[in-house]
């Protein structure tokens, strides 16, 4: 059994710039694969190459084990949901969904049947005669997916389709998309710059930066075990310190930050040695907060500081702590128990975290 989609050493240059640099990956059948990266990282270029709108400078694309490099976009067993959905405004909903079937030469009654099934599937029965402009954003979204799914493609490409929706709807559509993917049982390749979209929906995520894949893995992998400093910084929030390594023993290390604090962290098997410049990343939720130093005695990193500001956001509330050495602000999650709800600006707090939570990477350019 071949994977649904396999890209091999995919490269694309525009003049002197390399938009996609030797990228290889496979997407197993029926999975939800996301490519996550900042804008300009090359993810849209990959998507357009898979769809057939761009030709790779080198490399190959296989779908179900067959190369599609020489297949034009209208013949590829791949369909795409565009960023702005690209519904055909000159047609009604049923004609939109039936467009691909008409092109494939399916008979009229068959098209009608399939369109109705698709409308049922996306929970919008009986809207076939409506105009595109009469639908809400979420409905259009579902129609755009149905328009592709009636063609039963091997792979469905989605190019940041939630970008145009408002926040509330976006949250709901994340869940819905995942459900649709399960319902249609098709391989989805989804590109986004929004980590939460990727983390919520995907089976596997590729983090992309400057034309290359930094890391491919499950959401948990990326979040808890980032391979590179870029992934650690891009996926989820993190406090970051730069400094010079003073001691490495096994997986543990000690680093003196540029502001002079001695910090303990973990190398997670990365080759680092004393004297190297390095970055340590610590997630806000890994940091404990306490009124007194004794409560944090079991942590190997402890800092005393003052509350700089309180960012109340319900369950995701945080505080910014200014450490006594004055080396910058540290973001810390407030426990949900509400025991620190009395904190105010300027209060003195103790914070600490275990060295294993301090993810250490060699600094870029060293």
């Amino acid at each position, binding site marked *: 059994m071949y994977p649904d989609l396999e890209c091999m050493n995919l490269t694309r240059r525009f003049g002197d710039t390399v938009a996609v640099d030797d990228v290889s990956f496979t997407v197993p059948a029926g999975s939800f694969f996301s490519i996550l990266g900042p804008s300009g990282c090359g993810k849209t270029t990959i998507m357009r190459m898979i*769809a*057939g*709108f761009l030709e790779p400078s080198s490399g190959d694309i296989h779908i179900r084990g067959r190369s599609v490099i020489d297949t*034009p*976009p*209208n*013949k590829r067993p*791949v*369909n*795409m949901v*565009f*960023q*702005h959905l*690209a*519904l*055909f*405004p*000159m*047609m009604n909903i049923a004609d939109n969904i039936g*467009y*691909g079937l008409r*092109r*494939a030469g399916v008979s009229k009654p068959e098209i009608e049947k399939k369109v109705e099934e698709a409308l049922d599937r996306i929970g919008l029965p009986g809207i076939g005669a409506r105009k595109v402009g009469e639908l809400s954003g979420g409905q259009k979204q579902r129609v755009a997916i149905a*328009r*592709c799914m009636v*063609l039963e493609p091997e792979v469905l490409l989605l190019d940041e389709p939630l970008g145009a929706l408002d926040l509330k709807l976006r949250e709901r559509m994340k869940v819905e998309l995942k459900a649709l993917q399960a319902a249609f049982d098709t391989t989805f390749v989804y590109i986004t710059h929004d980590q939460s979209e990727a983390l919520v929906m995907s089976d596997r995520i590729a983090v992309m930066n400057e034309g290359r894949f930094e890391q491919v893995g499950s959401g948990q992998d990326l979040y808890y075990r980032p391979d590179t400093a870029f992934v650690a910084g891009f996926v989820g929030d993190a406090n970051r310190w730069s400094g010079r390594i003073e001691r490495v023993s096994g997986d543990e290390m000690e680093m003196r930050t540029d502001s002079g604090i001695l910090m303990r962290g973990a190398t997670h098997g990365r080759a680092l040695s004393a004297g190297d410049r390095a970055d340590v990343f610590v997630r806000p939720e890994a940091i404990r907060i306490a009124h007194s130093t004794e409560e944090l005695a079991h942590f190997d990193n402890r800092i005393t500081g003052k509350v700089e500001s309180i960012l109340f956001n319900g369950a995701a509330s945080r505080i910014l702590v200014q450490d006594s050495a004055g080396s910058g602000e540290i973001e810390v999650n407030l426990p949900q128990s509400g025991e620190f709800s009395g904190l105010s600006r300027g209060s003195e707090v103790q914070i600490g975290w275990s060295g294993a939570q301090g993810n250490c990477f060699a600094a870029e350019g060293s």
Partner: protein
Amino acid sequence: MRSEAKLGLILLLTPLLLWLSLLIFIPHVDMFLVSLRERVGVGEYKISLANYLTFINEPLYLHTFLRTAVMSILATMITLLIAFPVSYYIAKIARGRTQSALFLLCLVPFWVSELVRTFGWMILLRETGLISNLLQFLGLADGPVEMLYNDAAIMVGLVYTSMLFMVVPLVTTLESLPDEVIEAGYDLGGNGLSVLREIVIPHAAPGIVSGCIVVFMLSLGNYLTPTMLGGKDSLWFTELIYSQFIVRFNWELGAAFGFLLLGLSSLIVWGMLKLTGQSLEKTMG
């Protein structure tokens, strides 16, 4: 307060209304009255439909009338066929500087007057002209080739004169079609032809119709191009109107012809809108 605002509105509208009535409405009414006059003797006139009857009873006038309409429709269609790919290229394929340069190229001929443009074509097409000489030089023709003074030359002149008025509305509507929608058309299995038929043309329909209306009216009302390029067979209805007014001193018949032309063009535009299911508001707005 309200009546003051009303007064202000009336004052503001007065120049426009005066302009419309003095320069458009009143001359038309006057022209219509002239068309209903029949000359019965020196300086004597009576009201009758004689001029319109002359038009119906004289096969030459009717023939010229129909010929003008058919040639104008043909010129409109040819202009559309040439302008559409050009506009598509400008709006969707060319980028940045090339795009504006191409658009400018369409505009350049309109920096000189219609007379000069027509003379330009005469220089190209005449027996001792550029194209004839080029053909002889290349050995494609044995002797001088006369390409002027026929219907094809009229058609060339009309299409050339009208091109810009078709390209502008087409480029505008085509530019408003997102590239994504065209790509979606291909992605879902369409080929060039079906994307053109089902997506690009329906989207560009208002631009196509408004361009066609403008080009048709320009061709129908053109005087210079058919007379100069058409030579001895250049029968054009505006030429008939001119000669009735200026050469024959027969203003009555000329005015009747003018109104018939107005009626014809309105009728054909109306028919075109009905045929394509567009409305005037949609295409001109």
